[in-house]
């Protein structure tokens, strides 16, 4: 089966996020007040062939941890749906 996977990579809690902080500081100037805790990240979309959904999740999580994210500072979360 082919699954549509989305991997979101964000900085771990406690790791400074200068990008998120800069975005947050820019918002009031545009009239958006009351927005907090902005964290920047990246997302990846992949199509994954696997026998089962669990297998697809395991493989995607593995490749995300090995390549897409640097586990020292980042965390990868995987979401999956059937094609």
């Amino acid at each position: 089966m082919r699954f549509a996977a989305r991997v979101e990579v964000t900085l771990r809690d406690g790791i400074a996020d200068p990008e998120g902080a800069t975005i947050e500081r820019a918002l009031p100037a545009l009239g958006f007040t009351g927005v907090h805790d902005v964290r920047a990240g990246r997302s990846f979309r992949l199509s994954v062939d696997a026998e089962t959904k669990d297998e697809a999740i395991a493989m995607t999580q593995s490749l995300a941890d090995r390549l897409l994210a640097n586990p020292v500072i980042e965390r990868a979360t995987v979401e999956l749906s059937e094609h």
Partner: protein
Amino acid sequence: MAARVGVVVFPGTNCEHDAAVALEQLGAEVRYVWHHEVSLGDLDAVVLPGGFAHGDYLRPGAIARFSQIMEAIGGFAASGGPVVGICNGFQVLCEAGLLPGALQKNAGLTFLCQPTELVVTSVASVLTSGAELGQRLSIPINHFSGSYVCDEATLAMLRDEDRVILRYADNPNGSVDDIAGIASTAGNVVGLMPHPERASSAILGSTDGLVLLASLLDAVPARR
């Protein structure tokens, strides 16, 4: 006999010639090592120079760490061979797990290209063995992702084991504990964001990088 130094070239590396010229000026025999090579041959030391290996896609060093040559470099490092990563080379060594921690985007989110004042805070490494503790060096930086980060346990370990070899006198990028360069436990693997090869001649504005590169070359006979 001249020290044989390999300067590793990935697609996107751009400081290999600067590094080679600076090392040759100190008497080294330099060979460029392409990332697809599988062996380091008879090299005495390895330098991973600055640049943008594989376009810095994904993260600086994230793709380069899977290059064929990295396996040989890992083996060389494990056997005590001197390995120095400068700037992008430092990022590659961290991604490869040969040095702890990671290099994050600069705190100010700007690309920094400027002279920095460094303080030698450990001489227990192949790059600082010839320097003096507390010595101040003027060496330029040239990076966007140079903010060193690691967890508290790693930082405590680096301090306890005397592995923070260089600190910024005036932290330009938000690095934890003002860290500009670190070494492995044995001191033979070193990573630093500043570019000693760009401070290797009076016409470049500083010769302070020479003491570091000379230390590296001095580490070679000790191994032979």
